[in-house]
């Protein structure tokens, strides 16, 4: 079976498509139709951390070898019972000026920066981090990559300098005591930059940037983890929209710190809930029919002043309009043939990666919401999936839900 695209991204104009399958990134350019122009494979060993530790120990051993007759350190190998280590290109991100492409990897937990030249990539730097990166933004001037990790820390990485720090020497610029789910740099329209960070504990934090030790405020309304946050650019630096484990979306007048609107999605989503949305048995009700859904991604449609709302394991998406004052309104529900994994939009179209056996890439026209299969694009995907287990479980965001019993 082919590995589906776990992450897709379009540029603003809609003539470049970036798609990540497993550890490989594909770059497509639209001329008459989509053509593969470049690709990049993450070749770093899955056991990067183990190997690094082994090398450090070996060096220490060689230095101290004269002092004693200790045994040399063993080459670490995961035991036969060790679970397969799934390594992906987690995030694909374009700088604001679209000159640079930023990836995050699982192998060495790195941020990789490429310079884009038409449809081809030139790697500029690869900066490993202490913990797995899971959220990326760039500063407003595109000089800095701002990256949040699973441990709740946020680091700044100079986008262009060749200097690579040892991950042990990296100092976070801010931190939550919770897994980060989003990082977003925004402008207040008056020349000040802020960084918005969201976490698994329902928090949305606004800090100054780069003086991120000054917290301006928190935005409170979510009762479950926040999975996605966007600053719709047609709202002129005034509004943020967030969604995640809650059955609603929130929009915020973030500069005042007040909720602008709240849109309940339950009714719209209800017809599309399947067995996959059943709550795990330990937390299930007596009838066994309790279901839950999760907003997995908010995709901006700037040409339409709308957002596309994607859900975990759902064969449908919603189109929601966002007024300049932050008012949210459900415009339509679009059914999809298979459950959606992820999506991306340009001024022209919406591209969705969906689950399925073949031709798992769909392109929607924005006004009519009709779609075509991007066969030639998916045909270029040569990444095979042969591991055991549920491939799609690793793209699920619903597992961020807290279910502690203690």
């Amino acid at each position: 079976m082919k590995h589906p695209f776990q992450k897709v991204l379009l540029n603003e104009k809609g003539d470049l498509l970036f798609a990540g399958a497993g550890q490989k990134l594909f770059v497509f350019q639209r001329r008459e139709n989509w053509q593969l122009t470049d690709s990049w494979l993450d070749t770093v060993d899955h056991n990067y951390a183990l190997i690094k530790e082994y090398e450090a120990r070996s060096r220490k051993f060689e230095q101290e070898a004269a002092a004693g007759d200790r045994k040399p350190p063993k080459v670490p190998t995961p035991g036969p019972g060790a679970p397969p280590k799934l390594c992906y290109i987690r995030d694909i991100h374009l700088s604001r000026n679209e000159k640079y492409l930023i990836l995050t990897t699982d192998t060495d937990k790195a941020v990789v920066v490429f310079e884009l030249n038409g449809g081809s990539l030139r790697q500029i730097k690869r900066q490993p981090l202490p913990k797995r990166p899971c959220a990326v933004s760039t500063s407003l001037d595109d000089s800095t990559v701002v990256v949040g990790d699973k441990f709740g820390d946020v680091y700044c990485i100079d986008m262009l300098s060749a200097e690579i720090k040892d991950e042990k020497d990296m100092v976070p610029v801010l931190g939550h005591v919770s897994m980060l789910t989003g990082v977003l740099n925004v402008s207040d329209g008056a020349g000040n930059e802020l960084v918005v960070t969201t976490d698994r504990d329902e928090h949305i934090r606004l800090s100054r940037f780069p003086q991120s030790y000054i917290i301006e405020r928190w935005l409170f309304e979510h009762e479950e983890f926040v999975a996605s946050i966007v600053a719709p650019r047609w709202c002129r630096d005034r509004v943020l929209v967030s969604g995640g484990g809650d059955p609603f979306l929130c929009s915020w007048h973030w500069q005042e710190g007040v909720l602008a609107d709240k849109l309940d999605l339950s009714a719209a989503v209800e017809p599309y809930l399947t067995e996959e949305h059943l709550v795990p048995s330990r937390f299930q009700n007596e009838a066994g029919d309790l279901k839950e859904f999760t907003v997995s991604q908010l995709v901006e449609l700037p040409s339409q002043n709308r957002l596309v709302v994607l859900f975990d394991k759902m064969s449908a998406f919603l189109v929601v309009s966002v007024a300049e004052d932050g008012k949210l309104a459900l415009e339509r529900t679009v059914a999809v043939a298979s459950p959606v994994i992820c999506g991306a939009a340009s001024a022209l179209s919406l591209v969705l990666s969906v689950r399925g056996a073949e031709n798992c890439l769909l392109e929607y026209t924005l006004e009519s919401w009709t779609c075509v299969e991007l066969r030639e694009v998916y045909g270029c995907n040569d990444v095979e999936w042969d591991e055991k287990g549920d491939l799609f479980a690793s793209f699920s965001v619903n597992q961020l839900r807290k279910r502690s019993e203690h």
Partner: protein
Amino acid sequence: MMSDSLSKRKQYREAKEETRKVLKHARFEDSQEVSLPKKRFYRQRAHSNPFSDHKLEYPKSPDSMDWSKYYPGFVDSDTGKLDRKVEIADIGCGFGGLLVDLAPHFPDSLILGMEIRVQVTQYVEDRIIALRVKHKDTNEYQNISVIRANAMKFLPNFFHKGQLSKMFFCFPDPHFKQRKHKARIITKTLLSEYAYVLREGGVVYTITDVKDLHEWMVSHLDEHPLFERLSKEWEDQDPCVAIMRESTEEGKKVARNNGDKFVACYRRSLVDPKPERLPECVEYTDDLS
């Protein structure tokens, strides 16, 4: 089969739980006798993982927090709400020694202990109940309360910006291992949250018997742009420092063993620097459209 001591402990706890249910939020108009709790029935493992998802109750936001049941003596009878806000927080209050000693020194301020361990929190609850009942004629100990909470994760859920005037960190878990350092209660990143809930001029108090941890806390506080260290002279004249040295359980234990106590106090600095201007970014936004 349950051992004797264990079942005794269980019975004791069940009895106390009944009292707690009845008295926790009461104003004690009727005369009752409640004995001070015995610590040995509440012992719990000293460490708690601040990163795990405990089943904690915390408010959605500071505005949605109902404080009235924690400080029934300060409820405004017209509004049913507290007539003032919590101002002093003891983070990781343990068995509550500091709270109890601070209470008479700040009779007009509300003091809150935050503790992550369930049974230890219950001990403090029972201790406060017993003290309130015992002093019901003078209304003492109405100004202290305790809450089970993970302050490292949820502090901003409880307090508004600039709400607190004092925060105490007494004998925190040293987390000796290098890889556990993020679990320490004083880190550069968490200090930003403490600076957020502290008013300008508010004070962070730290005390520990672990020299390495003291140096760690000092270096992180020194590095943080929003905190400035208070002098030895200031420490010597501040009544809270004296109370902190003498009153906590850990403090007494260290004194019994003739151990060292390291104190460091920091003021939330008055300067809240304005962010640097970014002239390019206006030009840049135009580029995008």
